[in-house]
């Protein structure tokens, strides 16, 4: 069954691949005036079995080892011209491989000169060239299939359930730069294992790394919670600490309150929240200055983009019982609730 499918694909490829794609282009030629003894040496040195005869740029014929043998039988050396009486069968460079294969089947020559549409010789094609060309095409095919398989999105889809959700939670300690990125890395690994689309994984990794380092740099410690569903990945990063007095200002690219010692490590560029906004499908930042900060964002896998509108509007289970305090999200209208 499998073998049959493969054969069909090879046949298909013989129509997709053109003769010019499998040619070697380094073709050895002789003129009609070349002596057969000389041609014999050329064939022997190059270990080939035939070559085209070209006269003033035009293909005049083909000579092969067979012609050499009949010359030897004559017992005297003659010019190549004497041996190329019959008309030459050729292939066009832009024809599919199937055309060349048909000619090999029909006439049984070992090679065919390949000419362009103006009749100029461009190369010679052998059965070996065809096999190599097909193998290369199959390899490219296989590589593409592998890549596609890797790119496919099937986040949690192999789990049968009406409602699938996975909850992950990570503690993030203040000033713990040694473990910066650990939560992001573990979340990334989990998503890869669950079959998330590489793009979604990357966006989550970047956004979560930034959220995590923000907690490490600015807060007294916090937590990153992730809710993974086939349709979306939601993150809630909460901390206690100084909070953000001006959320709008904090969202501006380049704005930073990081101390110098943090900047020396390359952090505190003021691009963290901007990075999160860039990577997240929705983002929502709320804070009570002097007390706490809550950042929520979602990454919606490519396949589920259509669900985005629905998701931004609905109050998901994840946030239902946790009311934002001072909301200032890009994707939601600002709202002020009683502190919880």
């Amino acid at each position: 069954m499998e073998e049959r499918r493969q054969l069909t694909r090879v046949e298909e490829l013989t129509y997709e691949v053109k003769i010019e794609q499998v040619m070697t282009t380094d073709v050895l030629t002789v003129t009609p005036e070349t002596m057969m003894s000389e041609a014999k040496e050329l064939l022997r040195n190059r270990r080939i079995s035939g070559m085209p005869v070209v006269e003033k740029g035009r293909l005049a014929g083909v000579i092969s080892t067979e012609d050499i043998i009949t010359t030897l039988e004559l017992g005297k050396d003659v010019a190549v011209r004497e041996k190329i009486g019959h008309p030459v069968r050729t292939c066009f460079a832009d024809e599919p491989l199937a055309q060349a294969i048909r000619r090999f089947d029909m006439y049984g020559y070992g090679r065919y000169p390949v000419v362009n549409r103006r009749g100029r010789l461009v190369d010679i094609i052998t059965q070996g060239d065809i096999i190599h060309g097909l193998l290369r095409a199959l390899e490219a095919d296989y590589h593409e299939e592998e890549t596609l398989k890797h790119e496919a999105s099937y986040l949690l889809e192999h789990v049968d359930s009406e409602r699938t959700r996975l909850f992950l939670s990570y503690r993030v300690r203040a000033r713990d730069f040694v473990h910066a990125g650990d939560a992001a890395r573990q979340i990334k690994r989990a998503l890869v294992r669950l079959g998330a689309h590489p793009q979604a994984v990357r966006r989550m990794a970047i956004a979560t790394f930034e959220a995590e380092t923000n907690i490490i740099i600015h807060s007294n410690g916090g937590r990153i919670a992730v809710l993974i569903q086939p349709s979306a990945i939601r993150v809630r990063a909460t901390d206690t600490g100084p909070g953000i007095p001006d959320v709008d200002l904090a969202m501006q690219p380049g704005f930073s309150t990081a101390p110098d010692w943090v900047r020396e490590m390359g952090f505190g560029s003021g691009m963290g929240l901007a990075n999160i906004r860039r990577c997240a499908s929705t983002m929502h930042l709320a804070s009570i200055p002097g007390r706490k900060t809550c950042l929520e964002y979602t990454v919606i896998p490519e396949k589920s983009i259509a669900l985005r509108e629905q998701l931004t509007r609905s109050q998901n289970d994840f946030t239902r019982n946790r009311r934002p305090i001072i909301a200032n999200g890009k994707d939601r209208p600002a709202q002020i609730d009683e502190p919880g």
Partner: protein
Amino acid sequence: MKLRQIVDILSLTVMAGHAGLDTEVTGGYAADLVSCAMAGAQKDGLWVTLQGHLNIVAVASLLDLAAIIVTENKVVEPEALAKANEEGIPILSTPCTTFEVVGRLWEMGVRR
């Protein structure tokens, strides 16, 4: 181009992550700010930086970078080297400046 070739041509010192030297490198990014690298560095790319602390490995791991090139012989923390070995992410050291390294990579055709 294979990472190993780049190491040879630029005479880089492999400080850690020998296991990752056979990666095919597609491009690169240069910055000393972590968030900029997070935003700009591409999968299977090189990150050329002056930073030598542990967090560069976290960034490289999160972004699936091919390797980190630490310039001007900047001291790389032992914790970073240990983590890089663990993750199989090469840390490559050079006395050259970031400017020189990027220039030479560009000449070698690493341009994405």
